[in-house]
């Protein structure tokens, strides 16, 4: 889609959501963001803005999976050239009600019928490789598509065994889901698969609300002018992300920082070790983003709620705010 995106830095408030999205850009292994909130809170706007903010990637021209090197191009691809070109980081929409064929890819029916060739027509998973896969209303997604996504997200590879096809291609993407919790809950298995989870709400401050509408109106009336106005800030943010990405692996996590992560997860009784890992990675991304050379308690506290709130052992009948529970735990553990 060629629509111009709203500038990321012009989004009013929603700091936690913006920060979480930036962390995934800095360290893709964090593994996706789940954004829950009411309609009209700027969830979709933020994702589209992120797509425009992210730095370009280099990919083999014509490869449906955005492969980085000609050697990575799957053998079934016959459209790829030898040239490598810069493309925007892919952000692929998975529409609600998308069929399995569209997601996984399927036999190219037209070519099969007209030319008698068995050709694979890649789906959304191929296009999302090395980028983001965005699912709006993720909680309303059909169960069988959810299962499929879980499987691929875990292995990073899409294996197609259908319609007489047998092939595979890489599908490493960051899953971003958004939804309205009042319309249905997400299965715990899928919930756990998202690295981070943030809750968004419309700003309650009237001045902030006015600013949101003013900026939106200015953008809609004259997108080019508005983008120009914010280009500098978006560029600064992009540079910050690129810088942080380059040094995130050099950020040190001391033994005591690891201990803090473990203690926090133990205290909250979060299932499995995924919580600790994500917490550490998010804290490290936060440290890199803020220019710190090692992870401190400040970074861990900032990452605690997004990394852990969806991993608390859930009692279906206890609806105490998860964020509150995490905050309480942070203050109890860190004293």
């Amino acid at each position, binding site marked *: *889609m060629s*629509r*111009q995106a709203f500038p990321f830095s012009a989004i009013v408030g929603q700091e936690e959501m913006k920060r979480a999205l930036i962390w995934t850009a800095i360290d893709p292994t964090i593994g996706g963001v789940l954004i829950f909130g*009411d*309609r*009209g*809170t*700027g969830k979709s706007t933020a994702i589209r803005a992120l797509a425009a903010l992210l730095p370009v990637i280099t990919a083999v021209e014509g490869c449906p999976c955005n492969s980085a090197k000609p050697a990575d191009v799957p053998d079934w691809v016959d459209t790829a050239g030898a040239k490598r070109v810069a493309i925007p980081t892919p952000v692929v*929409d998975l*529409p*609600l*009600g998308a*069929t*399995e*064929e569209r997601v996984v890819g399927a*036999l190219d*029916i*037209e070519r*099969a*019928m*007209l*030319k*008698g060739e068995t050709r694979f027509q890649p789906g959304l998973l191929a296009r999302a490789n090395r980028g983001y896969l965005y699912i*709006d*209303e993720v909680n*309303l997604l*059909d169960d*069988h598509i959810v299962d499929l996504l879980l499987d691929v997200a875990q292995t990073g590879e899409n294996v197609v065994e259908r*319609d*007489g096809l047998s092939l595979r291609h890489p599908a490493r993407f960051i899953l971003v889901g958004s939804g309205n*919790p*009042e*319309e*249905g*809950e997400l299965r715990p298995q899928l919930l756990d698969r998202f690295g981070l989870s943030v809750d968004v*709400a*419309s700003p309650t401050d*009237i001045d902030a*609300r*006015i600013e*949101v*509408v*003013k900026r*939106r*109106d200015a953008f*809609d*009336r004259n997108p080019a002018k508005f983008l120009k106005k914010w280009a500098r800030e978006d560029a600064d943010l992009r540079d910050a992300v690129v810088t942080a990405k380059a040094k995130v692996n050099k950020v040190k996590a001391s033994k005591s920082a690891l201990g803090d992560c473990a203690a926090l997860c133990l205290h909250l009784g979060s299932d499995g070790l995924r919580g600790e890992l994500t917490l550490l990675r998010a804290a490290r991304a936060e440290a890199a983003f803020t220019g710190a050379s090692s992870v401190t308690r400040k970074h861990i506290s900032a990452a605690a709620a997004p990394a852990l709130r969806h991993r608390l052992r859930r009692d*279906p*009948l206890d*609806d105490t705010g998860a964020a509150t529970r995490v905050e309480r735990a942070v203050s109890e553990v860190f004293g």
Partner: protein
Amino acid sequence: MTPALRRGLSVRFLRSSAEPMDDTPDPLDDARLALALVAADPSLGGVWLKARVGPALNTVMDAADLPAPVRRIHPSITDEQLFGGIDLEAALATGALRQREGVIARAGSIILTMAERCEAGLAARLAGAISAPDAPPLIAIDEAADPGEGPPESLTECLAFHVDLTGVAGRELEPTEAATAVATASGEDIETLVKIAAVLGVNSLRAPTFAVRAAAAAAGLAGRTAVAEDDIALAVRLALAPRATRTPVVEEETAEKPDTPPPPQDQEPGDSETAQTSDQTADAESLTEAEAALLPDDLLALMAGRRLRGTLTGAGVGQKQVSGQRGRPLPSRPGRPGAAGRLDMLATLRAAAPMQRLRGGGDGGGGLKFRKEDLRLRRYQNRRERLVIFAVDLSGSAARARLAEAKGAVELMLSRAYEDRDQIALVGFRGKTAEVLLPPTRSLVMTKKRLAEAMGGGGTPLASGLAAAFGVAERAKGAGMTPQIVTLTDGRANVALDGAGDRTRAAEDALKLARAIGASGYGGCVIDTGRRPEPKLTDLAAAMDAAYAPLPHASPNAVSAAVTAALAG
């Protein structure tokens, strides 16, 4: 409060059309204006027009001058038709690939008829499509008969204007003049509209954004270059008031008008009723905390017995439904692949094979020759989703007796339903009427919240409660679910269906409805929440073809176990 805000809140901005005032806005006129505004500025998304087919709708649509070409679509439209795709028939006939543009790309404006039948997936895709720049505006004509029906919120959220033409007579309408000026909203106009939205409890920020654009478009239509008060009034009436979740209380205005101003005309009826009834009767009510309910172990046996007699449907065992997507495979059928079904390659080949000699294909060279009629689609049989409707007696008698325990029982059952991934709906009845506290949902949080908020007090309109539950069940069945009703009551019905306090008629009405429920097969179980078991409830349960269980004092998990046994197995 700023002067602008006070101005924004003056009663004329929010007045319902039902009020007998001289310059009352006419819904027909509003609809005409809404259509004219989206025609002038398609970025407004469109209009949600609640109207049955009739003269009112015809006059409005005739007067509208929508951007041509106007395309009518129906909720059963396939993605290929909507967004374009490969013209398979042309491809097969000519042997060359033909791309076909979708309705969205070709249309100047789109009319979606029977919008209430629109499923969530289509709604989401349409909402995405019309939110794109230069997309055609969408007029969603919603012919819903019940308040619970209607197009999904994901779609209506992206339509700037909501107009209700229910019960409006048709008449001649002047065609709208085209816009003669281009107006922009000033910073002050934006502030006014955002503040009004906040006062009306409109949470989404998309609504005030629409209102700002609507005010500017309205000024343009009127030939102004700046937004005037009238334009703001119109934007509020068409874009904000229908989304209001609360009626604003403004001191100056209440002094003028002693009566509480009626809620804006398009407000969710459920919401306004809740607000009003709880205000009026708050004193008389007791808000009881849910506590664990207790039932004896032998209830399990009782319900298991009922199940053995075959009166109850098994758990997670929804009715069967043929689907093109998933489930147990069924034999393939001829058809066109698309959203409805996947191509069954093998069966298609098999269908084409015998014809190859006639068509000159196969070994003769040139590959296999396919025709449209060879295409075979896969079909699957699918279990439908189950909906458990809880009809809870919130009357004074029940509240005094065991309301807390009944709530506890419902909560336990909820957690089971959650595990089984069933959907849940809540109906509460007390005083003179019943109310759908929660339409079908999978959200446990919402259910818990609504249940905790439910107040006790008043008479026992058992018949109304059953009628409401029956209505929810009917709609759910129409939407492809398998509904079951769990009734919790003390059975002391004393309010008839029409709200009259007449014990005999109340009991008769309740029994009539119970029979209707029984005949439709929605019966789940009836739980007696009275202090002593009520014999009449046994008859009621029998009429409903449902299991009957008294709710005595016993172990907490027995209740949920019992219900699970009754509904499940």
